[in-house]
């Protein structure tokens, strides 16, 4: 089954901060490839390449699909599904921010109530 895991920008940024991973994207821009094929091309162990591909996949930059014993990688898709996923990723980021903000606001309110009256 094809998996879509899409991105906050931050994940994309982290994914792209590595030379090998940028090379993998470049490679996949030319043609789809198996993880074994990529490992060979970049002179890496299969395990090492699997880790890199997993990071790219989490960022939505690459999708993988297992057919038989071979896992094929290609560039992530754009489009409507990607947009829905992006919105959800964005919502999660803001929700985490706003949950943190909630706590701070509670502290501030408390201080206001406890503090001296109009100094």
């Amino acid at each position, binding site marked *: 089954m094809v998996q879509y895991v899409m991105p906050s920008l931050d994940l*994309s940024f982290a994914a792209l901060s590595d030379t090998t991973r940028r090379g993998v994207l470049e490679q996949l821009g030319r043609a789809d490839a198996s993880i074994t094929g990529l490992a060979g091309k970049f002179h890496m162990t299969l395990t090492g390449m699997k880790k890199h591909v997993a990071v790219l996949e989490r960022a939505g930059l690459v999708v993988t699909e297992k057919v038989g014993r071979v896992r094929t990688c290609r560039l992530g898709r754009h489009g409507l599904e990607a947009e829905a996923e992006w919105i959800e990723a964005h919502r999660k980021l*803001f929700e985490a921010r706003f949950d943190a903000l909630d706590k701070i606001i509670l502290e501030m309110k408390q201080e206001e109530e406890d503090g001296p009256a109009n100094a």
Partner: protein
Amino acid sequence: MDQQTRSHPVAQNRTAVERKSDRELVVTRLFDAPPHVVFRAWAEPELFRRWWSPEGFGITLLSCEMDVRTGGKYRLEFAAGGTDTMAFHGKYLAVAPDERIVWTNEEEDEGAVTTITFEEQGGKTLLTFHELYPSKEALDEAMAGSAAALPMQLDQLDELLPTIGE
């Protein structure tokens, strides 16, 4: 566990994100404090930096300079793993205390203009975070979530973009 909202059906203690039009993205949330409190948490850097970069998202806020006045500037620097940093910067187009802050996002050529409003609702604050992009394409590109929307510190990306865009 949701809190009951008695008087305002619209106001939920939840974060909602919506693409409002081709060029607009809107995030809303209700906070349990009056606008002047919520405003301070956005306008004072030492408060802002405590919540803007939440744990678990792989980014850390390194520095945070904000001069929240009409015409003032801001610059936020993040670490995103390894030695790479990314910076967001722009200026405040309008600041109305306890009501509204408008700023530009200038790390990209086609950056959005962000407007946040603080609307009082029975002692609480409905916060609206609104981003207006200069074109549909600019928002599409931001939403593609790929290299296209990343800051340009990664020089190599320029070479990469054509292959990803296909």
